[in-house]
């Protein structure tokens, strides 16, 4: 089912939680909704589910305006931020609930319900937990019950609010992979909220980045990660180093230090260049004034990449670089060494246009 969100706004009292949100989502997409705390992600999902009203705008499912349709009729599966399992029901009854409450005409028979619930519990690997109560489950298990419960009613749209919220990294990864598999199997249009940019980049086919109740950017993971359209998105998706300086005739200058930015030909006094840690090149010797001296403060080795923290010698600023382990070994550098760094790729934003 395709979803169209048209100019949706929502205020709580005087606080504008959502401002003029418009997104088109095609049938079968798996969308990640990313943004800092309080940016309106939950509010947007709740509006889609019909649990929250909207002040302006419209929601269309498959081209039909459902803005005023009750949540009961929307056929949306909602996995809540804090699970919201029925605490007095067993896992089985939780999953069966959506089928059992159907009016007699559309309700499946008892055997059909039984079979369906068993199948779903097998799918979420909870076959042996059918008779437990939510209080007797771990966070990850509860999460999967919530998912199975939402899937039982065969929703046309699946909304997941931080589905992997309070779980440890390993379980998150497992569930994340599992969600993608599930999505490939069921082709339900799905939107999931996450705080974790890595998760969003990994699972989703498109990412929506929200900030302050507004949409910052919508795009594929590559688009959003490689070509952020604002400093906010750049900053939010991964670590970043800042180079402040003057822009003139395709060069960003900061004191002695000059970087070629051939794509930016106009002049500005105050600009900020953004460089990802893995786009920082480290050399032992100075080549030209395109590189700048920095002292290694800390070296952190995790797996195949080495994270290096540096302090620039010309200005009082810290930098973060990531280089492959082999390269690191070849360089033979250690804590306290002075090296020369050079941004390989740099994205320039002019602060007048963007307030950070």
């Amino acid at each position: 089912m395709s979803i169209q969100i048209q100019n949706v706004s929502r205020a709580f009292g005087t606080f504008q939680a959502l401002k003029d949100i418009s997104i088109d989502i095609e049938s079968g997409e798996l969308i990640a909704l990313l943004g800092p705390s309080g940016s309106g992600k939950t509010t947007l999902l709740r509006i889609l589910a019909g649990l929250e009203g909207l002040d302006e705008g419209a929601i269309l499912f498959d081209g039909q305006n459902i803005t005023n349709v009750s949540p009961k009729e929307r056929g949306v599966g909602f996995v809540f931020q804090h699970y919201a399992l029925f605490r007095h029901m067993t896992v089985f009854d939780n999953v069966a609930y959506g089928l059992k409450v159907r009016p007699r005409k559309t309700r499946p028979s008892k055997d059909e319900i039984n079979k369906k619930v068993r199948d779903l519990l097998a799918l979420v690997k909870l076959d042996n937990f059918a008779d437990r109560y939510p209080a007797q489950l771990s966070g990850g298990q509860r999460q999967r019950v919530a998912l199975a419960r939402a899937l039982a009613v065969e929703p046309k749209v699946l909304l997941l609010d931080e589905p992997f919220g309070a779980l440890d990294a390993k379980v998150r990864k497992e569930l994340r992979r599992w969600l993608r598999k599930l999505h490939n199997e069921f082709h339900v249009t799905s939107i999931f909220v996450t705080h974790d940019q890595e998760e969003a980049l990994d699972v989703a086919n498109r990412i929506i980045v929200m900030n302050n109740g507004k949409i910052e950017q919508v795009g594929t993971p590559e688009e959003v990660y490689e070509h952020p359209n604002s400093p906010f998105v750049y900053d939010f998706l991964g670590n970043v180093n800042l180079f402040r300086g003057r822009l003139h005739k395709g060069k960003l200058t900061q004191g002695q230090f000059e970087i070629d930015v051939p794509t930016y030909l106009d002049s500005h006094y105050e600009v900020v260049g953004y460089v990802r840690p893995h786009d920082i090149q480290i050399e032992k010797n100075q080549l030209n004034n395109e590189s700048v001296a920095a002292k290694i403060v800390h070296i952190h080795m995790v797996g195949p990449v080495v994270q290096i923290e540096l302090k620039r010698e010309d200005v009082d600023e810290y930098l973060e670089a990531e280089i492959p382990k082999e390269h690191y070994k070849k360089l033979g550098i250690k804590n306290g060494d002075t090296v020369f760094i050079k941004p390989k790729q740099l994205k320039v934003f002019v602060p007048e246009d963007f307030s950070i």
Partner: protein
Amino acid sequence: MTKPLNVEHDSPSIAGHGATKSYAMQESMIVKWSLIAISLVFLALFLILPLVSIFVTALEKGWATYVASITDPDALAAIKLTLTVVLIVVPLNAIFGIVAAWAITKFSFKGKNVLITLIDLPFAVSPVIAGLVFILLFGAQGLFGEWLFQNDIKIVFALPGIVIATMFVTFPFVARELIPLMQMQGITEEEASISLGASGWKTFFLVTLPNIKWGLLYGLILCNARTIGEFGAVSVVSGHIRGMTNTMPLHIEILYNEYQFTAAFAVASLMSILAIITIIIKNFIEWKAKDE
């Protein structure tokens, strides 16, 4: 739900302290046992002793007199009236209590705080004043007195008056019990239910009610106990018509004023038994609720 505090004595988790049975620890033992002793003496003096004396006095003149006092037509009428009032008041207050608690906890609206304060009003007002208010409203000289008389509706000095006064006095029990419970539980389970396609009624009966059932029962028990025992408000509106508008407490008072001590205590013993049963059920509910 108001549960007794779980004070853990001599916690076993303090490891390594066993060797040094310190002076401080001995002192705390003395404090502990003195406190327990004081509470026990207090309980015996003010609760057990009176309770025992009720039964002793009731049975003073033998079993036959006891049975006769209870089976006296006026006594039976009083028992019947009390039970009738219970059967009307408790279910009605259950419904009103749930509705009020639901409105307060699951919706946000203007004047919510006023409503919460109003629910507490019966606890703040003396029952006698509550009774007088209903006399002022429905009595012969009251605001609606004329109209009621013309339409031949009897409220004051009749069952409706007793029911209304009792309802007023016992209204807060259910709502007060449910509001904090429902506030704590929030509305996410209800939202989940609705988004799974359940109607409002199904959501209430399948999700909300099971979640609040122990709190509700607890409130009903308290409401029930107070309904049986209510004296002040009922005394004002009942008119003390023997065999007709006397509830059990009123009947006891009349017997007592007429120096029929044995009979008075016999009926009182019956009420005490009801009270003891109530306490047992209450404890059972607390125990059950904690279990879940």
